């Protein structure tokens, strides 16, 4: 049974990648948008952040492009919008398109010779709202009562917490690239703390989910047989993500210089940890029947 689960996850590897990158990328963008709109940074800093906003945007987009490659007949993709309101997957794609379009156009507009600050702030507000909605729709994308493995509160909770683990670090990396001094103060520390608290919360949630796996079974098999290694994934997720957070938090809390390769390594570690949880999500697919 374990091999069938692994097969499913390998088949859906692009979705594993999408659901790893998009939630964290989107939350990173939401945080950066908040910093630009509300933190009172000066006009030069604003310009630099606007430029590097492309990083979380690209991370979210790579995810979406990756997910499109798993489609057998992408030519029919526009019909996806006919299911908005009915199919959770349509809702997710619709939210993705709105969020990424708003963000992409904002990024382009920020290169205008005299961008209107008021308009930009409203725009950033919209990006923040649609970003959070996008993350919510990914969390509930597989909300179907017949898929018993996924129809539990742990699934959307784990995804939202994943975003809270990865998002703040991606935001920090973006602000670091834009040379924003604020990250050396309370803001940087707060973002590291949010990520750390989310990591603890998510590990707790996965551990509770792991102990409940035995209750999820159909006549063919049960989840402990499908993902017997789930506790190892939880452990790996915790160690990798904790490593990433510590790498980022050390210079932030010590007030020493942030080094770009270290920060990139920190984000990568966290994303690899999240990737493992998403891989096991697809591997644990189980319906109420056959």
């Amino acid at each position, binding site marked *: 049974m374990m091999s069938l689960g692994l097969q499913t996850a390998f088949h859906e590897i692009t979705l594993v990648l999408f659901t790893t990158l998009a939630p964290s990328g989107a939350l990173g963008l939401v945080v950066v948008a908040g910093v630009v709109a509300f933190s009172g940074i000066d006009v030069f800093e604003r310009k630099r952040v606007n430029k590097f906003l492309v990083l979380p945007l690209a991370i979210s987009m790579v995810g979406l492009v990756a997910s499109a490659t*798993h489609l057998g*007949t992408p030519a029919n993709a526009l019909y996806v919008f006919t299911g908005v309101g009915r199919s959770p*997957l349509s809702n997710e794609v619709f939210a993705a398109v709105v969020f990424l379009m708003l963000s992409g156009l904002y990024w382009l507009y920020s290169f205008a010779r005299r961008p209107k600050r008021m308009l930009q702030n409203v725009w950033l507000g919209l990006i923040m709202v649609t970003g959070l909605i996008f993350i919510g729709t990914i969390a509930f994308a597989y909300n179907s009562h017949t898929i018993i493995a996924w129809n539990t509160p742990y699934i959307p909770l784990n995804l939202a917490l994943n975003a809270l683990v990865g998002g703040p670090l991606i935001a920090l990396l973006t602000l670091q690239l834009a040379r924003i001094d604020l990250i050396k103060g309370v803001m940087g520390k707060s973002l590291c703390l949010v990520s750390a608290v989310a990591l603890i919360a998510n590990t707790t949630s996965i551990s509770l989910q792991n102990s409940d796996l035995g209750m999820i079974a159909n006549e063919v098999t049960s989840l402990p047989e499908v993902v017997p290694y789930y506790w190892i994934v939880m452990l790996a997720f915790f160690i990798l993500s904790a490593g990433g957070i510590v790498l980022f938090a050390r210079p932030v809390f010590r007030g020493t210089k942030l080094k770009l390769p270290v920060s990139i390594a920190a984000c990568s570690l966290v994303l690899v940890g999240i990737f493992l949880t998403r891989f096991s999500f697809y591997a644990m697919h189980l319906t109420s*029947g056959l």
Partner: protein
Amino acid sequence: MMACKDYHDLPSSISYRQIYEYTGGTWQKDEKGVWENDCFSYYVSVSCNHCVQPECVQVCPTGAMHKDDEGFVSVNSERCIGCGYCAFACPYKAPKVDRKKGQSAKCDGCKDRVMEDLVPICVEACPLRALDFDKIDALSTQYGILAQIPPLPDSNETIPNLVITEPKHCVRPGGPDGSVANYHEIV
């Protein structure tokens, strides 16, 4: 199953109808040293049940998976994107993703035959006449209303258009546990 594969020209990796072997029970020695057993085994032939509340239709993002006026659930290949959500959601494992075609594929109830007043090919081919096809009311009158036996899911979930004559060794509540013995034959 074979007639279906032949009629619909399916590759070896896809089968619209599956036969589940449900088996269980144990052998036990009593105090006089006599061996007794409560072993059992029966077969359940499963295909799409063209449910009243098909979850595959509910979750399909493009509306490709649809239930038509005659009640058949089938894939509109002009809309299907091959995302596989229907295959994830169906508790009867009815829709498959045809990776070569890049779309979902499933039993269409042999609608073309039914429209010509013929029965689906699986019904016609079954040598023991274990399968039958008609409007659900007619089938219920003839065979009763049982629509779930292990290993099938709770019929309230999707309300399948299915009636089953209970196998002689069907597991009853409190009886021995069974399991699907041929899962690796299922494609």
